[in-house]
């Protein structure tokens, strides 16, 4: 049961995010037309809205855009704490509204794919899940249902991850964030360098092999003798749900520490 305040804040986040998303989609349509126009030598005749639409993957684009919006929590926190809203309500409303938008976005993407003649009225064709696990169950309907569930769960998990990462960065001042980004960039470069060097070392090669086996385990890889499409989807579901729970609890723990920064 939600309180009146929780409903108000959830509504606010929902509408505000939709507004931002709408603004982003306008830019998306503009850039989908702008780049083909530029690369076609500024010829209007060569510009095709249909071909632009054909090449637009609505589901992943919406998932990325929504996750992008979810990264930025601090400005909303400032407004809400000014208006007597607790961190718990802030967190709850944010999670609920973004979950709703994320699920809605993917359902819209599926409808768009079904209506789009260029995608042969099918969303399964472009679904990585359907390509890898889409023949696991004997029934096509069951496979499609599980595929749909996986899309909704995985995009929600990505969005929850974005909320958690964004909330962690919200704890730091602008100056600290710059230092963190520099640190992460340096760590990334060192890591890539380490990986490339590690392949020349037997001990490290074993470690990478173990990591590879673990990755196979998490994606439900059934071995070379099992045809792609018939892999077991249980592990991806388990991994996605566990990651979602960790991100959910993690974002709550971080947002409980939100405070107005001196900057």
């Amino acid at each position, binding site marked *: 049961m939600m309180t009146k305040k929780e409903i*108000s804040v959830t509504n606010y986040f929902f509408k505000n995010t939709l507004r931002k998303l709408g603004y982003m989609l306008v830019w998306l349509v503009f850039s989908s037309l702008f780049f083909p126009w530029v690369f076609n030598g500024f010829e209007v005749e060569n510009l095709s809205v249909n071909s632009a639409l054909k090449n637009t993957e609505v589901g992943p684009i919406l998932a990325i855009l929504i996750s992008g919006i979810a990264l930025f929590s601090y400005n909303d926190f400032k407004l809400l704490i000014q*208006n007597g809203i*607790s961190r718990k309500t802030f967190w709850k409303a944010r999670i609920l509204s973004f979950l709703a938008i994320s699920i809605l976005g993917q359902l819209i993407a599926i409808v768009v794919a079904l209506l789009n003649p260029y995608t042969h009225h099918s969303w399964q064709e472009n679904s990585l899940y359907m390509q890898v696990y889409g023949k696991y169950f004997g029934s096509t309907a069951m496979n499609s249902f599980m595929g749909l569930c996986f899309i909704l769960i995985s995009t929600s998990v990505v969005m929850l991850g974005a909320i958690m990462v964004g909330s962690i960065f919200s704890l730091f001042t602008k100056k600290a964030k710059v230092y963190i980004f520099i640190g992460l960039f340096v760590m990334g470069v060192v890591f890539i360098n380490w990986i490339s060097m590690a392949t020349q070392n037997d001990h490290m090669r074993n470690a990478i092999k173990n990591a590879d086996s673990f990755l196979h385990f998490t994606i439900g890889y059934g071995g070379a003798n099992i045809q792609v499409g018939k892999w077991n989807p249980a592990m991806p579901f388990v991994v996605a749900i566990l990651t979602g729970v960790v991100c959910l609890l993690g974002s709550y723990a971080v947002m409980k520490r939100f405070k*107005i920064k001196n900057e």
Partner: protein
Amino acid sequence: MGIEVKNIQKSFNKKKILSDVNFELEPGKIYGLLGRNGAGKSTLLSIMANRIFSDSGNVLLDGKSVFDLDEALGQIYLMSERNLYPEGTKIEKIFKLTELFYGSFNYDYANELADKFGLDVKQKFGKLSTGYRSIFKLIIALTVPARYIFLDEPILGLDANHRELFYRELLDNYVKTQKTFIISTHLIEEITNILEHVFILCHGEIVIDGDVEDVLKKAYLIAGPQKDVDDYCRGLNIIGKENLGSIHGNYVYGNLDDNRILPDTVSVERMDLQKLFVNLTNMEETKK
């Protein structure tokens, strides 16, 4: 009932800002929170409004902790120098957001105040000058349906006319709504007549907590020739001294006992709140 501030402690970078602060706010009073720059006033108000966390202690509203509780936080509004409203949002839209989050909002009163102060509600918050940002936040503070209004430097950037108008509207609002106001400001002389109770914060501690009338009853300026004044003040709590030519003055805070004989050469006058504040905080500074 009311707000209880219990054992609040706060340090920044190992520097103690608030050390064991305790006081109570009764409903329906106007309080003054006075202190020098860096005394911890804004920190204290931010902790009370749950914007930042204390290292220890608690703030209770009607017996319930305000920390992360909507019910309690919805009864508090903190107007501060910090601008927490979205820069790109119009004032009239912020009124609507305030209604959404606080549950109700008096639009007629807000628009009436905006007219009186000359604030354009179609303007974006980020486009307002410092003075008009203060005015906008004051309008919200006076119209929001919270019972406890904390005003941290409310007259920042306001000219004399707007300050005068604000004091009038504040009193009018107080009489009509019986809300509790706590005002933190440096312009003590201007607000003395408004305040009913005063807290003086010095080096993170409350050094005065009392009704203004009672506090000022114990604040004296003893003036006359130095020797006579010093003899008369022996054993009293002298918080400051001043010389003007041959006239010497001792600022005393505390009761003067009746047995003390006042020489003809010595006069006893009342001290105003600003003088008391200056002398008290200077004395505390010297002690440290």
